[in-house]
């Protein structure tokens, strides 16, 4: 039965995505139309899901029937008209927490990933551009940090610096930034050998200009792709951290922690924890569908130009 529902859901979602793509094609301004036209159905589906998530995140207070933290009744009530998805272990409305969870989860993940990317990619681009001892020093240090298991390292740092949302963001971003650094550096190494960089260097341009105007725009596509994946993994990190006893501050609802809080229930076949886990999985798949499409476009355009 469950599989049937799942299959039906997938078919329905893709049907909806197809409709949406058609509508977008009609409504979009002309210059976007060609970009939208070669959009595969998967990407349309991904965009649709992302749009829904953003909408839910922004409009959470309007959509959620109850406040995020309010205890509305006894624990583990079944699904009902009043509580669409029942209540959680403290008697809070599960549906409302999922909706608010979109806001917190996506917000925190975005802030974390953005920070990791700003720091990691700037350092990576800088190292690739300057080369020499700067590159060596940074790379060796990053190498060493990457050689420490990231989860345990995060755990260590969070224990030292506390677990406010801000430190959580900073610590995960710091650990993630090492990975971003590596990618940014290797992408930039392919770019800095291009003639236009040589031309700019010979013009006497400074590092900051080179990074900002010459390298970054060209490194953006692979970095954005990586951004998509890393963005999704932030929830997982938060979830794993909360498994090991550190996580987001209550009573904030966050999908990663919600999975952890209710995980034991799955032992008895209760699907409560599947809801936040499914929310994460759906977003991951959606984001990556869009990223794949964009990457495909980027590489396709390159072939045409060359």
């Amino acid at each position, binding site marked *: 039965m469950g599989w049937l529902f799942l299959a039906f859901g997938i078919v329905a979602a893709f049907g909806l995505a197809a409709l949406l793509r058609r509508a977008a094609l009609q409504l979009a301004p002309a210059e976007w139309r060609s970009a939208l036209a070669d959009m595969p159905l998967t990407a349309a589906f991904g965009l649709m899901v992302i749009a829904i998530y953003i909408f839910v995140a922004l409009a959470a207070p309007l959509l959620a029937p109850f406040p995020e*933290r*309010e*205890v509305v009744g*006894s*624990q*583990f009530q079944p699904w009902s008209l009043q509580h669409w998805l029942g209540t959680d*272990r*403290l*008697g809070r409305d599960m549906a409302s927490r999922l909706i608010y969870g979109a806001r917190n989860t996506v917000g925190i993940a975005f802030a974390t990933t953005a920070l990791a990317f700003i720091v990691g990619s700037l350092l990576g681009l800088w190292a690739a551009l300057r080369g020499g001892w700067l590159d060596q020093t940074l790379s060796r240090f990053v190498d060493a940090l990457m050689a420490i298991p990231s989860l345990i390292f995060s*755990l260590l740092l*969070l*224990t030292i610096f*506390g*677990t*406010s949302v801000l430190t959580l963001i900073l610590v995960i971003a710091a650990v993630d930034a090492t990975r971003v650094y590596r990618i940014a550096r290797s992408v930039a190494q392919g770019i800095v050998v291009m003639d236009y960089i040589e031309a700019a260097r010979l013009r006497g341009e400074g590092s900051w200009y080179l990074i900002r105007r010459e390298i970054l725009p060209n490194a953006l596509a692979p970095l954005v792709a990586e951004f998509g994946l890393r963005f999704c993994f932030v929830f997982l990190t938060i979830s794993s951290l909360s498994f090991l*006893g*550190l*996580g*987001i*501050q*209550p*009573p904030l609802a966050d999908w990663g922690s919600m999975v952890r809080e*209710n*995980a*034991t*229930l*799955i*032992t*008895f076949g*209760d699907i409560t924890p599947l809801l936040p886990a499914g929310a994460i999985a759906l977003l991951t798949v959606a984001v990556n569908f869009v990223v794949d499409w964009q990457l495909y476009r980027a590489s396709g355009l390159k072939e045409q130009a060359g």
Partner: protein
Amino acid sequence: MTHDLRKGALTRRGVLQGATALGAAGLILPGSMRAARAEPQRGGTFRIGLGHGNTTDGYDPGLWDNLYAQVFAAARHNQLIEVDADGQLIGEIAESWESDDGKTWVFHIRQGVTFHSGKDVTVADVIASLNHHRGDDATSAIKQFFDPVVEIRADGQSVVVTLDAPNGDFPYLMSDYHLAIMPGSDGKIDPTSTDGCGPYIVESFEPGVQASLNRNPDYWKPGRAHFDRVEILAILDSAARLNALMTGQVELIDQIDPATIGMLEARNVARIISIPGNAHYVFPMDSRAAPFNDNNVRLALKYAIDREDMVEKILGGHGAVSNDNPIGPANRYFYADMEPKTFDPDRAKYYLRQAGMDSLTIPLHVADAAFSGAVDAGALFAETARQAGININLVREPNDGYWDNVWMQKPFVASYWGGRAVEDHMFTTGYAAGAAWNDSFWEHERFNELLVKARSEVDEDLRREMYQEMQRIVSFEGAVVIPMNNNYVMATALNIGTPDQISANWNLDGFRCVERWWMT
């Protein structure tokens, strides 16, 4: 990461001679929860999955600090004195004990008991075992209990302990789980040895993973130690523990997630054992600091918590509401009739106004290290308090380092007490002015006066009156919110037989499930 020493270091009974029964410490299981009424029988392998155990666990008795180490120790060692399921002190390696003045204690050592190695247990071994926790260089967690000890000497087949002042509760010390009797040489025990005179002999031990023990064929106690073999496993993840029990990989687990107790019961594959006791969950406030220096604020908080709801949701019903009273129903002088505090936002607001404020915003620092479910309990507290105009900002602290960094450092935290069987002990360690673990930094003149007086009061009624007044003072003027007493909850496979009475003194039948339980 438990801190069991704090949980209830001593179950003192306040008696001068051994073997005195007190209170309702034990639990008579209702018929439905009983295993098949078979007599204990020998055989089988008893596998225990515990939510404790650490790779740093070792054999040194001075450093045992979690349930894993405690059960493992109970399986291989005896102490001088045992607390039985009824809460009575009964002789173990000490056959009997006496004191004329409460200052000089004589313990008569049982003859004919041997260590696993085959060596007889002698007076010298006992003295060496005690001295391990004593002296300037001792690194034992219970070193301070020996501070009043002036001398320990042998006298024939007896050990004589001299104190610097009378202490009628001294035999209780000797029942402490740290005081394992181990073979000595040159007056010292080897803290890396597994040799003991307990019911099981260690076969293998991997810290933080598992220990295997086989029955000691020469165990001296009749009618005990029924299993052929005991395996103690550290299973830290609660779902993994449940699964291990349900798939028949272990016969006993502890620390069951309250959310799943009902489901586990419904599966009918396990027996839930729930033992009420004096253990309680606490939210202590720093009474020296504003705003907690105002009793009105404290009262406002006490009326802003929904105790019933909390017992239901945090303990899954396996516990009892407490009226901010560290003295539990198992205590002699428990003040059961004290007017209860129910959740009453209006009343809380009233007290808040008395304190001259309309609303209040305070941080509450919690971690599940304080007690399991502390973060959830904090969240519930914050929710109910909000209705009374008190805004509690929950701050989740790392489990790691909680007791160093948060407890007694931050003004409003979560904490846990194992409870004390004796009122004086509870109050002296946790509420007397200047006590080391007075985690609310609370000082109350009348209370402190009563505390000293009650200790020497001989009239039972007067004593009861005094202790009840003290309970009232703590409840209505103290700086702790005590919403509930928690039960010890464990689950066994259906083929495990237990005595009708299971000790409420410590978890898992006073750690002694391995020697008291059997397989049907």
